[in-house]
């Protein structure tokens, strides 16, 4: 990003207001960045101060009686399981939906479809939760029982299947449905911005549509796709109400089709209202852990994006 070097010559321009405008504008941009940094520090400080008593407390006083690590570990794994399921389902489908809208669907249809997808991102999570708990879970009871009977030897399908269908797999599917519109909407915008000339050139050289997409669209969009997936992941990791309503939680288990497992966000939401004293600090510490997980994932994503920086238009 070396645009500043290309900036127009400074000096005795005819309009002085221009220079002031430049200063004001860059100042405002800088200020906005600084504000974010400040807010973040405040939030981080708040979290750390509130979480601190957990780490100094007697391990026996922590929920479960074996210290904070023993308490947090299962729900960290549960959170990761749910988010992984969600992304495994939503990423390929979301990217495909975006491709469909940007490169496959007839143009008149594409606009309407794009609109519908944006709209779906707006359905409140309570609604997804209610839908998952009342409709989806009962639909999945049968398939789960089948999986347990026929593929039960694989640990993740270990039986007996849940009698209500409210399992971590259901929660993961609901999360996938929730993050799908986010991924689809953002990647669609990226795909639409892929340079037309490259695409036309590829087609002119006799490439099939897929080859054109693979050569001229996907490389260009890689950073954007990862960014979109990370935003989706952020929602999947932090989603509270939908998981709280859908998942019949319990201790950590390998099977995805039995009731069990728990996510951090749902754990916080379910217990915070009644929490007092150390329990409250514990839950905030759980929030801090969630924070750190998201951060780690995002850093990996940034690292990947930076390796493909050359495709960015603004460099």
């Amino acid at each position, binding site marked *: 990003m070396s645009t500043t070097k290309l900036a127009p010559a400074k000096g005795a321009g005819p309009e002085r207001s221009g220079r002031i*405008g430049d200063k004001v504008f860059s100042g405002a941009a800088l200020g906005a*960045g600084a504000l974010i940094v400040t807010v973040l520090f405040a939030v981080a400080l708040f979290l750390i101060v509130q979480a601190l008593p957990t780490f100094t407390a007697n391990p026996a006083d922590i929920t479960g009686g074996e210290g904070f690590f023993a308490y947090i570990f299962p729900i960290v794994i549960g959170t990761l399981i749910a988010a992984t399921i969600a992304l495994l389902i939503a990423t390929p489908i979301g990217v495909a939906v975006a491709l469909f809208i940007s490169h496959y669907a007839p143009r008149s249809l594409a606009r309407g479809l794009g609109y519908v997808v944006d709209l*779906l991102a707006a359905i409140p999570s309570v609604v997804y939760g209610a839908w998952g708990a009342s409709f989806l879970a009962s639909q999945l009871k049968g398939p789960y029982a089948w999986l347990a009977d026929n593929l039960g030897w694989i640990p993740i399908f270990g039986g007996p299947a849940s009698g209500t269908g409210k399992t971590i797999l259901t929660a993961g599917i609901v999360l996938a449905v929730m993050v799908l519109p986010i991924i689809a909407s953002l990647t669609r*915008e*990226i795909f639409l911005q892929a340079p037309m000339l490259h695409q036309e050139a590829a087609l002119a050289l006799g490439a099939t549509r897929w080859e054109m997409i693979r050569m001229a669209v996907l490389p260009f969009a890689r950073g954007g796709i990862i960014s*979109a997936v990370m935003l989706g992941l952020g929602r999947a990791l*932090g989603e509270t109400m939908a998981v709280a309503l859908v998942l019949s939680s319990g201790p950590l288990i390998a099977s995805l089709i039995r009731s069990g497992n728990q996510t951090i966000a749902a754990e916080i939401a379910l217990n915070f209202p009644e929490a007092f004293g150390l329990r409250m600090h514990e839950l905030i510490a759980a929030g801090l852990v969630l924070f750190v997980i998201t951060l780690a994932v995002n850093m990996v994503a940034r690292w990947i994006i930076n390796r493909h920086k050359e495709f960015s238009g603004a460099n």
Partner: protein
Amino acid sequence: MATLMTERKRSALTRNRLPRYSPWAIAAGAVVVAAALMSLIGFNVFGWAVLSAVLFAVANVSAAAIVEGRRKAVDKMMTSLVYGAFLVALLPLVSVIWTVLVQGIPGLLTPGFLTTSMNGVTGAVDNASVENGTPVLGGVYHALVGSVLITLWATLISVPVGLLTAIYLVEYSAGNRFSKAITFLVDVMTGIPSIVAGLFAAAFFAMILGPGTKTGFVAAVALSVLMIPVVVRSSEEMLKIVPNELREAAYALGVRKWRTILKVVIPTAISGIASGITLAIARVIGETAPLLVTAGFATTINMNVFAGWMASLPTFIYTQIMTPTSPSNADPSTQRAWAAALLLIILVMLLNLGARLVARLFAPKTGR
């Protein structure tokens, strides 16, 4: 079907391509074969449709592989996959929307739902309406007003901050350390659990204005904390893909940098930015937990974001579902909750429409 294909192949041998009608023929064949197979294992329309689609895709790809070669076959396969993925994605989404429509419309059409609050509506009122079969009383007006105002304020805070930050990152920072710190921190911000954002805003205002300060504005601040990273992240992506040629062309004409950004860069990216902002609004307008701890829970109309508790649609939906007004007759509450959910979706739809209008007005004319 295979014989059909080989015959066609011969007649079109010179061009090594499938005839134009082949997809239709394959589709018809797939539908028939699927029907036959389904009749063996018990017929249902859904299974039939799925099986037809799968058969069609497989047959189409293999036909292309035999006749047209590997490249065309891969292309056909990817086309099938993309279409298939799209159809798969539609299933749950249509199901969700259908559920909301079916459950929400009766409540939304109840007279007075849009124009009254929940003031004075008690379990006794709901019991009476169930027992006597009279229309459900109580409405969503207070929550609608609250949601609109809180989201409006959250947008007014986060869009300027978020967009300016994105501009700083892409246009001004030149990848310096400060910008790396911002990028890093924005990433951190996407990981803030929504309840934590609410607690933070509540604690912050409790520190300044005394304990128990719950107003619409506190909620707007909490939502901004959640919204800003989404705005920054999506706007940054959109600004980045604006081709450098455009910037250089503007500079070459002697246009100032800030005017270049305002008149060239942002208009080029506006469609994506608007989409990102709509997503950000959509992300927060449905938040429940942070609103409960920041805006309180009101049953009456409050137009002032700076004083008094405020209701909002998500908290309204949440409380109506989780703690029905009348525990023994939960149906009126359920009806109100679904109707409010539908209303919330309609609200976002309008917002989305507005954002698209903006994008249309300001976007430069392009080939697409």
